[in-house]
């Protein structure tokens, strides 16, 4: 695969400049936008491989951009980028369709790694996001009636739990694979499966977090 084509959405010029310089030479930056409406329009027009999307922006932020895209370009993958790692922000943007979430203090190489991973169709889970998911899917305090539980969506498999726990402990995907004696590809598929559950599950905590986000 050649260099991924990346689109930047952030309302702060300084942040965009920082990301540009960090990624220079490693990816092809096909455009930038600093507001929701323009971002959605340009993304549809240029169909980049990866959109680096700021979560906090005026007029609804990253979630609004994802809604505007509304699944019209499934081949465009979105990696959310934010200064905040509050649960409601993370969960809301993932449930709106982002394939991953990183905080803005991420190092250049890690960001690049995340971009490549998302471009390849994988999910990017930071340790903190893994922690949130474990929290949200905890066995204790399940607010679902037994009849409403869809095991395919509302419960994590023991293996997925193991993988998430290792990610939360700061393991890279490669380390996780070594630790569990499975292939990195299998780790990826577990994480993607968790991402799907995160996006589709009706778990009370998840919908709560997501709906709280609408208030902003």
């Amino acid at each position, binding site marked *: 695969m050649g260099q991924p084509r990346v689109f930047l959405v952030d309302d702060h010029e300084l942040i965009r400049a920082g990301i540009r310089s960090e990624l220079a030479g490693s990816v092809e930056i096909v455009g930038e936008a600093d507001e929701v409406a323009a971002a959605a329009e340009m993304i549809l027009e240029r169909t980049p491989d990866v959109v680096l999307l700021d979560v906090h922006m005026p007029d609804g932020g990253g979630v609004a951009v994802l809604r505007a895209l509304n699944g019209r370009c499934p081949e465009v993958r979105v990696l959310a980028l934010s200064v905040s790692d509050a649960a409601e922000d993370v969960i809301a943007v993932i449930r709106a369709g982002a394939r991953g979430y990183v905080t803005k203090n991420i190092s250049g190489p890690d960001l690049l790694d995340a971009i490549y991973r998302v471009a390849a169709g994988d999910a990017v889970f930071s*340790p*903190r996001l893994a*922690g949130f998911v*474990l929290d949200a899917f*905890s066995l*204790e305090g399940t607010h679902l009636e037994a009849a409403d539980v869809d095991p395919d969506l509302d419960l994590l498999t023991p293996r997925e739990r193991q993988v998430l726990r290792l990610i939360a*402990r*700061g*393991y890279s995907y490669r380390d996780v694979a070594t630790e569990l004696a499975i292939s990195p590809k299998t780790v990826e598929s577990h994480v993607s499966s968790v991402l799907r559950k995160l996006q589709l599950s009706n778990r009370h905590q998840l919908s709560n977090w997501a709906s709280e986000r609408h208030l902003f």
Partner: protein
Amino acid sequence: MSAYRHRPERSDVNTTTPPRPVIGTPHRPYRRGVENAILGGVCGGLAIRLGVRERTVRVLFSLTALVAGLGLLLYVVLWLCLPRADESEAIAQRLLGPRRQLRRVLVGLVAIIVLGLLLQALGAPSLGAFTLPIWLSLVGAVGVWRGASPDERRHLEELAKSTPLAGVPGKRSKRSFYLRVILGAILVFAGLRILRHFGGAWYVASPALVGTLILLAGVAVGLAPWWLTTLSDLSGERRERVRVEERANVAAHLHDSVLQTLTLIERAAGDAEAVTRLARNQERELRAWLFDPAHASSPEQARTYVAQLREMEAQVENDWGVKVELVTVGDLELNDNIAALVAAGREAAINAAQWSGAPTVSIYAEVEPVAVSLFVRDQGRGFDVDAVPADRRGIELSIRQRVEQHGGRVTIKSSPGKGTEVELFLPRTP
């Protein structure tokens, strides 16, 4: 002392008189006090004039008041004749001043006469008993109005506007205002008729009661909007106050923490390490304040596992200049065992910060139904677990001891070049 003798033209200019008495130094002229006033400021003003304590003057006035009320009379006269320190005219001067409000007085008079006649027409008992208090209140009201300073008048006007019937209705509510007045008047009239018909006859008390109720209903119809407005004004005011307080809180916090840190960063601009530490510190604090208000606002109450870990995160970041990435799942109340676990975790984290050379220490804490676990991981240089030098053996031992004493277990995984992970595990005892 010519400056003192000069009388300022404008009511709000006169700052030559001190607000409180300067003991031992008399100040001219004698004006009523403003800041040290309890009633009318007569005693406070005299205290300033003579340069003695207010209390002395007040006690003396009270004593003279006992002599046939002489002090009281003196007080009232002084109150009427002395201008307040921040005003140029005394109340008496205003009372006897130009008759600008004559028209209003006349209107009021006519209203009273009409009311009196109306009452008479309805046959209200002993009109004379009614009229004297009414005349007295009228004179009092005019006196209050004429004696009031411009500021006080503005206040009175506001007050008058919000009183029922006499108040000036807003444009939009004009129709409902007239409706209200008419309805109220009919009800009052009906009530009075019934009262008059049966009044004094005790054996027919119930119709009288009905009349009274109707009368009250009439009054209520007249007063309700005023009362409601007052209520909603109050709650609106309360809301506004809450908003203002909230804003002040945010401003205070930003000032105390963020601005202070920015200043420190500007000063330490040359010292990269200090700047990083300051920024990191501030970031953590601001994050806690924004996203975790419960913890931020009552740190002394946050005696939980996660709260302890947060404290540890802050301490290690500050003292050792590394980034600590803390991820927690679940939480529980602090007890001796948990405290020991956190203490051991702290040693492990400090150890990692000190020896591994890695810029980041990852800490993962999980509370499960049966156990509490804590993982401290770095991706630094690592070491051969079986060949630990003696000086680091001690640290490992103390970590191990702390946890094992409380029924837990410790696993240390490390190899040169691959980083280190310390696993602390503690079963939960119900």
